[in-house]
């Protein structure tokens, strides 16, 4: 790769520029860089997935001396989202899909499918429906689909970002066990500590262009660790400071009594108080997200009750939250969904933040003041005119939290707010939640993130599978 640069059609800025990089066969490289440094674009270029007519190229990329668009069968790539990279309804068929495309003779296909499934430790028969797999298992299957093609270069673009810790461990083990000595590996991953056992070289991209650092993990983190941590990379060995509550919790806000929704959630008791951060833990399938929706007044309980206190709802406390009108609900309980994009309603970041206050009847000057304060607080000023759907993962998360705060609810309910976030956004979220708690808000978070719980939570509640 010499002086490589790429600009997507219709964009003014280069996604990546001035990259000189030589990777030898059999090397395992961790590719790092702050959000927006062009890591994914670089991987797409190596995978031959940037058609010539989709942008403008500088410099050259070669794989074994070939243009990657022509040498596609030497490269395999696994993406972030398991849902959108599985093609077929049955697991074995999905692995066979790539082999069929490459014209592998029919007699060789099934032995190679079985071999690839074995290499990634796929625990089921090949007839297993792909829809019945967990996220971690789906990513293992996607990896098998790529390995079956026997690529010389394997590219992994944050393959564990959408997974809970158990699923992420499944995928890492599969990568560690499946990659052999002559496979070259290039991995993009925020969570450096998890990635280090897989790599022997670290390359850091500079957001403005070029390569900032290149070398062994010890050398790179020794020289650039602090700067990288400040830019959001999860550099190992840098613990995050806990934010403890400074005052005891206040009035109760919301109480659940034998609250359940068969078959998704078993009966659960809980109470949230003002000035308290409660973390809801539990394995996949325990109904944590369902609990968040029930507490948020978005689903009708199947069993038991949710009751708001007069402190939260005034005279409306007599009716359960799921019966309240939406504007009244938004003023009292804010919900932040796991996927920020589900929550976006308007065409710009500014309107997105203004929507809640306008719906709840604030006068326009007050709306403007609220929006400006939130834009500044969550580092979104520069993006006020941008379309919410074009934001990066971290920006979209900050916006979705900000929209819930715009109507100043006493109670905030978040579903996996720190999922896949870089260190910088992560710290900002912890700070923000701590501030809210200080100001007498209640914060409930459904989470798989042990560091987040350690840093913030006053209390935890563990739900188990119904």
């Amino acid at each position: 790769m010499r002086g490589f640069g790429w600009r997507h059609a219709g964009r003014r800025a280069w996604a990546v520029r001035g990259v000189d990089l030589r990777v030898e066969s059999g090397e395992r490289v961790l590719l790092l860089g702050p959000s927006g440094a062009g890591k994914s674009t670089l991987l797409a270029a190596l995978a031959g997935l940037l058609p010539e007519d989709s942008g403008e190229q500088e410099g050259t990329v070669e794989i074994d001396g070939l243009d990657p668009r022509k040498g596609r069968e030497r490269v395999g790539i696994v993406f972030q989202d398991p849902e959108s990279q599985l093609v077929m309804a049955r697991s074995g068929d999905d692995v066979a899909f790539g082999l069929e495309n490459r014209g592998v003779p029919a007699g060789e296909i099934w032995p190679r499918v079985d071999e690839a499934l074995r290499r990634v430790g796929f625990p089921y028969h090949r007839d297993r429906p792909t829809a019945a797999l967990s996220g971690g298992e789906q990513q293992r299957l996607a990896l098998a689909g790529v390995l079956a093609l026997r690529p010389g270069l394997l590219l992994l673009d944050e393959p564990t970002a959408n997974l809970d810790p158990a699923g992420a461990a499944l995928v890492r083990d599969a990568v560690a066990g499946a990659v052999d000595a002559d496979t070259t590996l290039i991995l993009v991953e925020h969570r450096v500590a998890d990635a280090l056992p897989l790599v022997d070289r670290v390359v850091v991209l500079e957001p403005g262009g070029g390569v900032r650092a290149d070398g062994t993990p010890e050398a790179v983190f020794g020289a650039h660790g602090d700067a990288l941590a400040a830019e959001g990379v999860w550099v190992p060995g840098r613990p995050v400071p806990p934010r403890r509550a400074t005052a005891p919790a206040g009035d109760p806000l919301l109480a659940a009594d034998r609250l359940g929704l068969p078959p998704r959630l078993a009966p659960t008791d809980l109470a949230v108080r003002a000035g308290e951060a409660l973390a809801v833990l539990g394995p996949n399938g325990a109904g944590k997200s369902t609990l968040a929706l029930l507490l948020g007044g978005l689903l009708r309980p199947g069993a038991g009750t949710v009751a708001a206190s007069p402190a939260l709802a005034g005279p409306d406390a007599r009716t359960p939250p799921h019966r309240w009108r939406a504007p009244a609900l938004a003023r009292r309980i804010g919900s932040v969904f796991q996927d920020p994009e589900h929550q976006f309603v308007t065409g710009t970041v500014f309107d997105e933040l203004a929507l809640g206050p306008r719906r709840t009847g604030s006068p326009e000057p007050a709306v403007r003041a609220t929006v400006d304060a939130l834009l500044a607080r969550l580092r979104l000023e520069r993006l006020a005119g941008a379309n919410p759907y074009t934001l990066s993962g971290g920006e979209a998360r900050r916006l979705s939290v900000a929209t819930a705060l715009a109507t100043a609810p006493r109670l905030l309910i978040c579903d996996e707010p720190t999922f896949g976030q870089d260190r910088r956004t992560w710290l900002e979220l912890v700070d923000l939640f701590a501030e809210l708690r200080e100001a007498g808000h209640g914060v409930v978070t459904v989470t798989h993130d042990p560091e987040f719980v350690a840093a913030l939570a006053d209390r935890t509640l563990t739900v188990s599978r119904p």
Partner: protein
Amino acid sequence: MITLEPVAAPDAPLARRNPVAKLAAALVFSFIMIATLDPVAPAIAVAAELAVLPLFGVRFRVLARRAWPLLLGAVGILVTLVLFAAERSGRVLVEAGPAVVTSGVLLTALGLVLRMFAVALPGVIVFATTDPTDLADALIQNAKAPARFAIGALAAFRLVPLLGQEWQMISLARRARGVDAGRNPLARLRLFVSTAFALLVGAIRRGTRLAVAMDARGFDADTPRTVARRQRFGAADVLLIAGAAAVAGAALTVSVLLGTFRPLIG
């Protein structure tokens, strides 16, 4: 809830036939049935369809659940025609205020309902007994459909059940944002349109990611594809198509012989 999985016992003699053969048989049968307006031929056809149902491994109760939109349509046709038909020939059967039900009207309505079932049931049966993957494979291998189309449609099809969950999440997220329509029908329509738009945006983005992932695994390569799952098209499959044509033809013949035949054209 939309289910796309086959509901039949997969080893029933006719369910096992090549998916393209089943599809062709259903099309042939339905096209012949469209040709007539009389109630006799469709009645025979529906009887024949129900008679072969066990050979497809489909139980009547399961079929009724699958075909409930058809049943609803049938009731609609009956009510509409009985109440509003302009031509009121034949003997008066019931007279209740402005509603006059005559034997002629009832016969026409019955004919229409029977035709609808005769034409639609073969399709329902085929899709109830066919795995979508097998259908795509057979379309490529036996009907020479382009793989880019058949596999692409199959992959898109797999994402359909996700849309239902997405719709629910988007609707709930809107309520959480303070957006609801209350009882105002105009606001309801606006909310529906904007939810549908958000769903569409999400579906397009997911579809694009899926297309890139498929191309990364060589889907767009010029190499001729091989097939991992061979679909056979044998004599039994030809017989199935011929049988469907014969039964439909026989139903028409009976209708002509009885003098009830009324061609669609002419």
